[in-house]
């Protein structure tokens, strides 16, 4: 057996045939796309104003980062480090909004779900707030906070908060009352009910709300940065488009997609699976 075939058998054993097959099949359309993109550059089918060169997009990353003085300047969101500043300020807003919005939304949602009459009253508010959440708030946010950090943070926070609130509330409401009553019968306090029944029972709903809020929030954040921001990836692609620097737009769009894919694939989906496995109520009393 030759070297190459031994190697290939080893790789197949290591990674798994199905995964390898999926990987190679999945890479075919990307390769075709990049080839066509490159051919466009060779044969000039479309103007370079509309489709940039592949190499230009790659280089744009380094050109934007060129004037950066070093790591400390990049962390301090210095204006000279354009690329890292834009990425970090977008990601920072997501983190900040989730740190504030997730606990607040979950806590208020569970609180609202605890009393069924109150949750019935709050349900229409939740439905309404969710249906205008995100993009429609941008003009009002600009009026209130001006253009900048606050507006974009507000939009993201708004989207996350209402989705979490609604999901936590509905999650608590969907728990069978038997559990709550049994804890109370056994002499548990209200707090015991919250920590042992409501929180774990609503967990699957909360986590899927988290995934949804990232999806909607990231979109809303990009739109908010375009319209009412002064930094961030959305701002970058929008201002580059108005200067017809199409290569920067392509770069920004690819980075936006990659960030979202990475968070979804490596944080939220595993979290969701784990939660449903750990906390999901498979057994339901009749």
């Amino acid at each position: 057996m030759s070297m190459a075939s031994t190697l290939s058998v080893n790789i197949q054993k290591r990674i798994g045939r199905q995964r390898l097959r999926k990987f190679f099949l999945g890479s075919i359309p990307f390769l075709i796309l990049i080839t066509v993109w490159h051919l466009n550059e060779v044969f000039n089918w479309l103007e370079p104003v509309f489709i940039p060169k592949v190499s230009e997009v790659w280089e744009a990353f380094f050109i934007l980062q060129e004037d950066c003085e070093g790591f400390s300047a990049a962390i301090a969101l210095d204006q000279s480090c354009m690329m890292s500043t834009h990425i970090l300020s977008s990601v920072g807003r997501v983190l900040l909004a989730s740190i504030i919005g997730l606990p607040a939304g979950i806590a208020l949602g569970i609180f609202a779900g605890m009393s069924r009459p109150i949750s019935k009253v709050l349900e229409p508010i939740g439905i309404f707030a969710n249906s205008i959440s995100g993009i429609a708030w941008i003009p009002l946010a600009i009026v209130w906070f001006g253009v900048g950090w606050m507006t974009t943070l507000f939009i993201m926070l708004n989207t996350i908060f209402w989705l979490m609130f609604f999901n936590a509330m509905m999650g608590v409401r969907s728990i069978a009352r038997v559990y709550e009553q049994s804890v109370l019968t056994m002499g548990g306090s209200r707090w015991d009910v919250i920590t042992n029944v409501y929180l774990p029972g609503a967990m699957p709903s909360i986590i899927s709300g988290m995934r949804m809020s990232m999806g909607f929030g990231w979109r809303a954040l990009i739109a908010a940065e375009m319209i009412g921001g002064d930094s961030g990836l959305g701002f970058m692609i929008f201002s580059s488009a108005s200067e017809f620097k199409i290569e920067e737009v392509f770069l920004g769009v690819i980075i936006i997609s990659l960030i979202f894919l990475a968070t979804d694939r490596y944080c939220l989906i595993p979290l969701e699976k784990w939660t449903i496995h750990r906390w999901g109520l498979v057994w339901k009393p009749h």
Partner: protein
Amino acid sequence: MLLSRNNLNRFLAFWRHFSGANAIHLVLVIFGILLVWTLISHALENPDRYLPSPIAVALSSFDMVYEGLLPSYFGDTIGRLIVGSIFGLALGIPFGLILGINRTVADMFYPMMNFFQSISGIAIFPIVVVWFGNSDKTIFIVILYTSFFPIAFTVLSGVREIPMKYIHAVRTLGGSRFQIIRDVLLPGSLPHIATGSRLSIGFAWRAVIAGEMLAGREGLGWMIFTAQDVDRTSEVILGMLLIGLSWIILDHYLLRPFEADTIERWGLVQR
């Protein structure tokens, strides 16, 4: 479709909602919100700029209806949503079916679809603007792009979830490939098509609003954006309320009953 039983039930439930004890809840909530809103707006120094009172918003709505602007903006937005999402669905459903039928094709295109789906429609907006300028075409392409992926993904998973025994049954009885598609895969994935359509239209609705703001074409999104520019906050709030209300009506009284109908009629309940 519109006059189906579920829809009628929905309407009756809605009617009971307003005539029973629940109505008192809803009215109380609305009054409470209006009261708090009025109080806050009176406490502010410059309410016309930051938070106009509900009365000011109502007056501005009369104004805009009188001028005929509001109906025309509303019609524009809804028209864009309908046309854009019809094209998106018409492309997405067959694409999802093709991917669902053939596993190799699905494995090939799934990663690329995932990649393009996570570029939200709003993010490709700057590129489309460079290509087509600030026109209606731009908004339609953005809507089409946003509504294409959710439906394609749900149809794909719908086709995958059809139990193999139905396909085997048709094969055993000597059915052709076309018959399998027509008699098993298409009806079997109908519930998912309904769910996906609702999802797609939801994303498309947000894309319409954002697209109108960014491309500057007349509509509800454009209305709230320009009103903010000229400091007419009451119109901004009016537009927001309208956007929220029309989505609730669209979702709860049209799309959800339609979805429930489809699932009830075509859903495969496995025993």
